[in-house]
Structure formats: C-alpha cells, structure tokens
C-alpha cells in the first residue's frame, strides 16, 4: 500500500508540507510522530479527502486522488479509508450496533447488522451493541469507533491520536487491542513516544513545515 502526499496546505497561518511515500513491507502501522501543531492531523485529513490541497497532489494506493492543478478531488466516500479520531464522533442518536452497521457497505440490513456484531466482538465491545454512545465510557466509545472504521473494509486505516483523550490504564488496554487487531496499512498520528514504541513498525517524524522521512521503528 503506497501513500504519497506531495502537497501544500495553507491551514490558517502555517504551511503543511507532507512529502512521503510508504510501502507495505514496512509492516502495517506507520506512526506520524512530532510535536502538536506540526501538521500531522492535517496530513491525515488530506489523505482522507476531508481537506483539499492548495497545491500539489495526493496519491492513494498508486492512484491520484487529489490534484490542485486540475481541481481533481476524489470524494472521501470513494477513498475507502477508515478513520478513528481523538473523539469517537459516533452518531449519538443511534446504538453502537447501528453506528458500526452504517459502515458496512454491502449486504442486506440483516447481513450488515451481523457483520457489525462480529466487528464489535473483535474489539471486545459486543455487550455494548444496544447502548447509545452517551452511556459509554471514553475507552468503550473508541472501541466502537475502531470497529466502525474496520467494518468498511478500508484499504488504509487512519488513526488521529485515538488514545490521547483516554486515561493511562485505558490507553494501555487499547494499545494492546490495536496491536492485535490492526492488519491493514495504518497511519497512526501521535505525540506519545510510548505509543510509538508499542505500536509502530516505522516512523515518520514531523517538524513544523516539513517531514523528516521514514525510518524503521525497530
């Protein structure tokens, strides 16, 4: 899985220049590591198609998905990326099961619900299926969010500081889950060195305005 971002994004006052390409041999989880405000989250947003580059291009899996020069922009919906944010961003008016089922792209309603149950089980949250997000703890919500992101069979998983809003014990538990559960190419944005050590197969280091290239984590 290659991801190539060679783009400039003027977000407010500063420029994010993300210029890297990763390949599958490096192991599925690539950490984007650096201080807050260095543009890591914006890079994910560009890859996911939630933001358009002001100049330059984005390639996903070898395919051009955004080109500022021609105005080409493949919609988020069509990029098959799964995403987990710092806040779970689940739909508050639906149950956990429904939230995950929404991500399943094919099949009848019953089949979607069935698949959703499987995904919830895989993240250890099957007992939460009928609950609404507001009755769940932060860690539980993130489990559901992960299940949701994976239920769509994404070609690339984007994790934007998924654990930083959680307390230490929960963080550790979820780190284990991520290590076990994640098998698709994954970009993990974090500023936590422990997380990098525990999860990353390789690391891209960020400084404001530029990235520092790929190096293997271990």
């Amino acid at each position, binding site marked *: 899985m290659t991801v190539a971002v060679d783009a400039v994004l003027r977000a407010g006052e500063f420029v994010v220049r993300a210029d890297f390409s990763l390949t599958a041999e490096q192991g599925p989880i690539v950490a984007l590591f650096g201080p807050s405000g260095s543009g890591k989250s914006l890079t994910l947003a560009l890859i*996911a*198609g*939630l933001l358009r580059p002001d100049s330059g291009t984005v390639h996903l899996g070898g395919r051009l998905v955004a080109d500022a020069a021609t105005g080409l922009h493949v*919609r*988020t*919906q*069509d990029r*098959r*990326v*799964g*995403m987990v*944010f710092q*806040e779970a*961003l*689940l*739909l*508050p*008016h639906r149950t956990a099961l429904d939230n995950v089922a*929404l*991500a399943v*792209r094919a099949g009848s309603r019953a089949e979607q619900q069935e698949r959703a149950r499987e995904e919830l089980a895989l993240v250890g949250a099957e007992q939460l299926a009928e609950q609404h997000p507001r009755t769940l703890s932060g860690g539980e919500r993130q489990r559901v969010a992960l299940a*949701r*992101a994976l239920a*769509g069979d994404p070609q690339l998983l*984007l994790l934007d500081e998924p654990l930083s809003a959680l307390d230490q014990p929960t963080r550790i538990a979820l780190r284990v889950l991520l290590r076990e559960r994640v098998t698709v190419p994954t970009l993990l944005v974090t500023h936590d060195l422990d997380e990098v050590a525990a999860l990353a197969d390789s690391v891209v280091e960020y400084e404001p305005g530029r990235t520092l290239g790929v190096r293997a984590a271990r």
Partner: protein
Amino acid sequence: MDWFPLLLSLRVASLATLMAAVLGIGGAYLLAKGRFPGRGLLEAVASLPIVLPPTVLGYYLLVVLGARSPVGRAWESVFGGPLVFSVTGAVVAATVSALPFCLRTARAAIEQVDPRVEAAARTLGLPEWRVALQVTLPLARRGVIAGVALGFARALGDFGATVMVAGNIPGRTQTMPIAVYDAVQAGDDARAGTLALILAVVAVAVLLLVNRFSRAGV
C-alpha cells in the same frame, strides 16, 4: 358559533407549514452547506417575507399569482378557478409567510452540527444525501422542529398577506385572523373577543405540544 374560520385556519396552516417545512429545511441545508452562485440572492429572497410588511408581501403575491398574471392564467386553465381568492391562495400566502421562520431556524441548527461527525460519516462511505438525512438533520432536529413550530404559529396567525391574496369571503376564505378583523369592523366586539381567544388558545396549545414532543427526544 361558526366554526368555519377555525377549521379553515387549521387546514390552511397545516398545509402551509408542511410546504414551508419541506422548502425551508431543504433551503436551509443548501444555504448551510453549499457554495454556489446565487447563494446570496437565495438568502435575501428567503428572508424577504420577514422584512416586507405582510400587506406588501400580499400585494406582490397578488401580482405574481393573480388573474392577470401568466401563473394565474395557467392555473385557471388547468383547474377551472382562479388561484387567488381561494383556499389555495390562502395556503400560498401562509406558506410564504412561514417559510423564513422554518428556514432560518433550521439553518442555524444545521450550522451548529459538529462537522467532524459529518466528516466521520463520510469516511464510512455514506453518500452526501445520507449524510444529510441520517447524520445532519437528526443532529439538528431540535432546532428544525422549533423552526417548524414557529412557522406553524406564523401561518396560523397571518392576516395581511392572506387577506390580500385570498380576500375576506365568509364561508370560503375567511380564516380566523380575518374573522377577528371582520368582527371588529362590524362593531361586534363580543365575537371578536371570542374568536381571538380561541385562536390564541389553539396557537399556545400547539406550541406546548411541540415543546413537549421535542424535549422528549424523538
């Protein structure tokens, strides 16, 4: 006790609110989300019915829909009777009066919806129309319902535009507000007082019902 004005008012206000809600919510979504040429114009036009005095509004409606206009003539050839000075005319006047209330309140509510939840929904592959119907509008429902309730109250109480477009024809187009005015004109203060009280009670009752409904968290 002549119940015709009350029944007519309820019927007209219900139809008008339904149409104002559909047009208003649709328009609100477009204005909140879209960037398209003519957007400013749409905003201005949608606010006109609030800015214009009701009788001026009624006058313009009469010009556009009256027996001498292309629209009015076309209507008459299809349906056999004029569009104005009929119940249809009353519904149009009430719809136009109620529209800005539905639209502006819905728009404010839609703009309050956390765009990150919508972004997350897009990563799941949900097409824009499903994002609108299954994410945005449910999250905005409190404001949307409040706007519709306001629109209903406005439609129920309209006088100036309705009397211009539909006329004061007892037993045909005489809505409650017009009947109150008519009674005052005729010097029948007792009747005016009774009608006004009934209208006020009905309006308050509907608003209370809607409040209860929306608070119960539908």
